[in-house]
């Protein structure tokens, strides 16, 4: 029981500056296995930066990141200077944490299957046959088996994002990070990506989703967090959040603006 309650990911006092701007200001967050955390908030509130720092795409100045109870990613040198851990360790950590980007970032020179195979093949050094097997499974999961031999340029935005999800899943990550996964999509294409992510949640995948799409918060979140100016302003279950936290002036004005 105790192990089940141990957070998969635990962030403590995460702080990140861009020059004089404080993007993330001492954020604490525990994410339990199987939990779906949805972070909302206005642009520039630091939610993407927070998400990216979990994957070390941003280097944080203060705070610790614990993954499965282990402090990860940063070491302190003899001179007391804190810096990112050795590149091969960072790579190993990243391969356990999947990430999906707003702009998909598919590899345009590889076919759909090639994109999904790439992680198992190059990073995990699996045999081409094995990597192909995994990739086909993942493509089936996102419903794009028939598109395996085409290049990403021919896909719709929704299809591209589903391939990107399959690519991340092919590494068998323990945690998935979604950085505004539907923001670059036409409204009619949001549904397919939304459904894919929801199915993933039903399978028990632990996820942190940064989004402007209230559907994520309302329909699949275990916890909704409102972030503004680098800090968490309010959080709660969707029911609690949309019923009670709406009293919060800033949340109310934010929701009014986007709804």
């Amino acid at each position, binding site marked *: 029981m105790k192990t089940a309650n141990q957070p998969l990911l635990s962030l403590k006092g995460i702080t990140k500056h861009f020059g004089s701007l404080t993007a993330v200001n001492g954020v604490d967050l525990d994410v339990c296995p199987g939990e779906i955390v949805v972070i909302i908030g206005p642009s520039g509130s630091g939610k993407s930066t927070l998400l990216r720092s979990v994957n070390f795409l941003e280097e944080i100045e203060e705070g610790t990141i614990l993954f499965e109870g282990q402090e990860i990613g940063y070491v302190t040198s003899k001179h007391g200077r804190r810096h990112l851990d050795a590149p091969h360790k960072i790579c190993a950590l*990243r391969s356990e944490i999947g990430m999906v980007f707003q702009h998909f970032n598919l590899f345009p020179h590889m076919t759909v299957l090639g994109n999904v195979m790439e992680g198992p093949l190059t990073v995990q050094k699996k045999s081409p046959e094995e990597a192909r097997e995994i990739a086909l499974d993942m493509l089936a999961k996102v419903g794009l088996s028939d598109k395996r031999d085409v290049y990403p340029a021919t896909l719709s935005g929704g299809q591209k994002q589903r391939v990107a999800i399959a*690519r991340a899943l092919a590494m068998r990550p323990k945690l998935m990070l979604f950085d505004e996964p539907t923001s670059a999509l036409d409204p009619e294409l949001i549904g397919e990506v939304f459904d894919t992510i929801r199915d993933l949640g039903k399978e028990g995948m632990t996820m942190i989703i940064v989004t402007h799409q209230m559907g994520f918060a309302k329909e699949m979140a275990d916890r909704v967090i409102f972030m503004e100016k680098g800090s968490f302003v309010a959080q709660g279950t969707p029911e609690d959040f949309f019923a009670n936290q709406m009293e919060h002036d800033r949340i109310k004005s934010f929701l009014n603006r986007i709804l």
Partner: protein
Amino acid sequence: MKFFNGRIAKRSILLFSCVLLFAASICFAKDYDQLFSDANDAMAQGDLPAAIKILKKVEFEKGDESGAFVRSRMQIARLQFALKDMDAASAAAKEVLAVYPDNSEALNFMASVQQEQKPRYKVFIEDCLRFLPQLLKGAVMTITLVVCIILISPLGGLLIALGRISTFKPVSGLCWFFIWLFRGTPLLLQLFFIYYGLPSLGITFKPFTAAILGLGLNYSAYLGEIIRGGIQSIEHGQMEAAKAIGMSYWQAMRRVIIPQTYKRLMPPIGNEFIALIKDTALVSTIAMVELMRSADQMFNAYFNVTALILAALIYLLFTTIFTFIFEKIEIRAGIYENR
């Protein structure tokens, strides 16, 4: 006495005839000199037919000791040649050959008359056939150089490009310096320095090695900047996505970033390689016998412009073939964008 008288008589006859012969020869020679000088006057006035008429008065005499006959007929031949009357010209030369069948001046003249009577294209083709073997030998060397540099310089350029974007300052600084140096000085000077300058520091190269070294370093510097531009033109998200699935920097470069630069790099690199084909002409200055040098040698030996025209045609052929090949490669490299 009789004997004595007879001897005197014999001697005096001999002496007399000698004097007579001498006088006659002076007399005749003087006559011909007058003719030649008259002919010269006529030529000076531009009246070539008149000059020919005068020269025709010189007649053949046994032996033609004075050479006046040959001189006059060859002069007539040249004048007729200048007047474009080839039949009359060769007739005059044949008069000489009738008397002296192996007079080299007349033989040469007949050859050039024949050459002149040939159509221009035939002359051109004959020149081509004469120069082509030597030029092709040079062209083989040019192609050898080009192929070597095409194999070497992209690798050198890639190393320099990766060095330039390295976050490790000494490496990026060194690569910056390399590019600064080799892009900032003339290739000709670099070749001179390597071939003529380095021996004074105790480093000696064969011409071929010096040529490969000079062209290789120069083109690596240029390609380095082109490839760096190509790498940096790939959007940042590609590197992030590669890192997000756990790739190292070098894995991401090798598998994701660099393959995407191929299509973008083909046009500028193709351009550089076409410039390279022509730049190989510069190594003719460091004792390399390639196409330009061969053409130059032919031109100097025969003073015949056909050698230069042929060399230009061979260069054009090479650049055309390369343009064609690079267009094909470019289309293949970007195939994923068209499907």
